[in-house]
């Protein structure tokens, strides 16, 4: 079967895949590479459950074509922990019960990581606006915001 050959880097590993022109990066991650941590909540860039970081920029992977991954560096939720050592954001999400069903969690963690990279000391308002592209229906966001605040404190101290 014909397809577009793509070479990219995912979570630091070199990855090559073939995909169709219309396939999204989310389709490729989930269906071709078995990286199902990014979720499809809407397919239209409204829910943020598929958030990944491409070349340092937070994107909805449902709005990026698989072919656009060529030559880029992609971070997904699967690469967030360092082996068994969880990222401070992951630890704080667990401690604060910032997840109930957990399906939006990978997207929130990527968005929060992107925020803290750009702004290590965000106000509550800055956190709320940075995470406004990610929908959560379970928590009312309270515990998510607190987890990000706490993680920011820990990361500053580190």
């Amino acid at each position, binding site marked *: 079967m014909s397809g577009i050959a793509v070479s990219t880097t995912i979570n630091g590993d070199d990855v090559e895949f073939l995909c*169709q022109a*219309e396939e999204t990066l989310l389709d490729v991650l*989930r269906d071709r590479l078995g*990286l*199902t*941590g*990014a*979720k*499809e*909540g*809407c*397919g*239209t860039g*409204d*829910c943020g*459950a598929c958030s990944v970081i491409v070349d340092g920029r937070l994107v909805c992977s449902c709005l990026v074509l698989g072919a656009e991954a060529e030559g880029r560096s992609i971070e*997904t*939720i*699967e690469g*967030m*922990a360092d082996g068994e050592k*969880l990222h401070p954001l*992951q630890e704080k*999400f*667990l*401690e*604060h*019960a910032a*997840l*109930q*069903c*957990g*399906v*939006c*969690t*990978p997207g929130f*963690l990527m968005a929060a990581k992107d925020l803290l990279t750009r702004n290590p000391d965000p106000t509550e*308002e800055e*956190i*709320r*606006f940075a*995470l*406004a*592209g*990610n*929908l*959560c*229906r*379970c*928590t*009312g*966001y*309270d*515990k*998510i*915001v*607190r987890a990000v605040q706490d993680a920011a404190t820990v990361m500053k101290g580190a």
Partner: protein
Amino acid sequence: MGFDQSYSARKFKSVGTRPLRPDGVDKVTGRARYGADFNMPGQLVGRVLRSPHAHARIRGIDTSKAEALKGVKAVITAADLPDHTEGDSELYNILDNCMARSKAFYDGHAVAAVAAVDAATARKALKLIEVDYEVLPHVTDVDEAMKPGAPQLHESSNMANRSEYGHGDVDAGFNQAEVIVERTYKTEQTHQGYIEPHACVASVNGDGTGDLWVCTQGHFVYRQVCASLLGMDVSKLRVTSSEIGGGFGGKTHVWAEPVALALSRKAGRPVKLVMTRDEVFRASGPTSATSIDVKIGATREGKITAASATLRYTCGPYVGMWAELGAMTAFAPYDLENVKTVGFEVLVNRPKVAAYRAPSAPMAAFAVESAVDELARKIGMDPVEFRIANVASEGTKSSYGPVYGPIGIGPTLEAVRDHPHMKAPLGENQGRGMACGFWFNFGGQTCTDLNIGADGTVTIAVGTVDVGGSRASLSLVAAEELGIPYEQVKAVVADTSTLGYNDMTDGSRGTFSSSMATISAARNAITVMRERAAQMWDIPVGDVVWEEGHAKAKGEKHGNLPPLSVKEIAEKAGNTGGPIAGHSEIVADGAGVSFATHICDIEVDPQTGATRVVRYTVVQDAGKAVHPTYVEGQYQGGAAQGIGWALNEEYIYGKDGRLQNPGFLDYRIPVCSDLPMIDTQILEIPNPNHPYGIRGVGETSIVPPLAAIANAVSNAVGVRMTHIPMSPPRILASLEAEKGA
């Protein structure tokens, strides 16, 4: 076997603490597998063709071109789902909703489905299916549908059911009233809005066995319904519940699952079927749109003399009990001598209504609590004091019939009265509102297997799907009853072939009923461990007691025997009778009813009608909070959903009967920047029918927000809001109307 479910006060060691959840690491690392994260060898992609018409007779479906397309392995219509329902009308309605049989009843109603080698081929195949529709007149509005001459969905009237509750003589009661408030309220249809669309992988073999992997709130119920619809033997269909990405009642009903099974049966291969967000909005979910008349009368001293309501709830194309639930719950917080509610179930050309968190209660509470507030204002009483003066308590005859046991509505109101939030100053254009809410909660069929590992660690296999952290709370309960540390227990959700039948995780029953089964299973395991310890010591079992996680020999002659831990007993299990386990199969009746009172401050921009939630507080009775952090999470999540419902969310239908906003961009649920922190206060009024006093906590928190926010907005702008959601255009229109009046 008798299991004593009555409450006895105790000092808890594990219950009430806040440990990390057992499924947490998987969920923060992307490893947890949800509905769409599972695949089977050789699986096909399933897709559903849906009616673009709100109401149409299906004269014929030609699938030949789709079947001829390369890569298409099966095309099905209603003809491939023959009627096995044997006169069970509820089951027939489910079947008809899964795949339209003679008429399409709403925009989005499934009419055919395909299974193909990939998604692109499946999409192409859908376009090749030719459906011959005879478009019929439609009706989507609840009040329009009740009018004479309205387009009719079925042979009989659109008014599909009438229900009635109450006691006393309301006419006499209104005659005694010195002040009366009477109004009509409307609420629009909303969706549960779970972030994970419905998804399943189905595999049916030629020998009649099958597997279904699915995100659901109740895999045992899905098995029962799917097997019945497909004509399969229940025990030959194994259903595994995936991690579930939110449900809120929406995943208690089947839609795509019977279709996926029928496709797999026809294609002879596994089929994965995942709904798009558009399909989720058009075909699954929604709650009722409503129109409610409320009349409440009181004396000048503030005693309610009579209350009545007429509640009209849409149910989609099939009758439900939605208006009835509204009629039952409407006046539940109050002690009323004369009360009457009448519910009308109204058929409309919208999707079949599904349960949504305390189904039907939020709309009824919106209407009633708005009227109660207005009445208090007219009398000149503080709205909290007015409610306290009329509140139900133990021994009150409830508005839906039975007499209450110990309940928490009075204490939540008193907590709200004394809460600092009530005394905080308000800014310009801000208003404060409060409101009460009620939900029944229920129990049902439940079982738990508790197995002791060779090293003394414990697995509990439960049959209630974990939607919001119940594996953590059930592990706490097992640890509590056994007297061992939480870390020694691991809870898993078992599939339908490895555990007895369980009702769904609905009605706030998950932790209530599975904790009861877990306590019972743990007590049974303790009985076994006492016997084993007696064998190890070679003493009578009557001399062995279970204390603090250990078997202890009692009596002076055993004074030299050191206590045996679970680990020590487990190590010798092979010598003392084999594996050690405790099982429990119960009907967890006796769920405790649940009450909440909410406070909120809303700021309204009088120029644009835009609103901002400034502050929000939830006070609710939990019975006993097993894992308080997750109880807070339930309170906050329900409040946030209620805020969305009150201010923004609604299904918008065009004149053509088509849904105009089937996506998260135009159906806007609250985002992080829309909300403040949500304060919570957990009250614990023990449920007398649970050993630990647990009530359900999952649903009630969505009941008060609609009214609390409506009261706050009304107080902010000085105009009574009667139509939910209070979107900016609707608030502006109310302000304009008031100016004109």
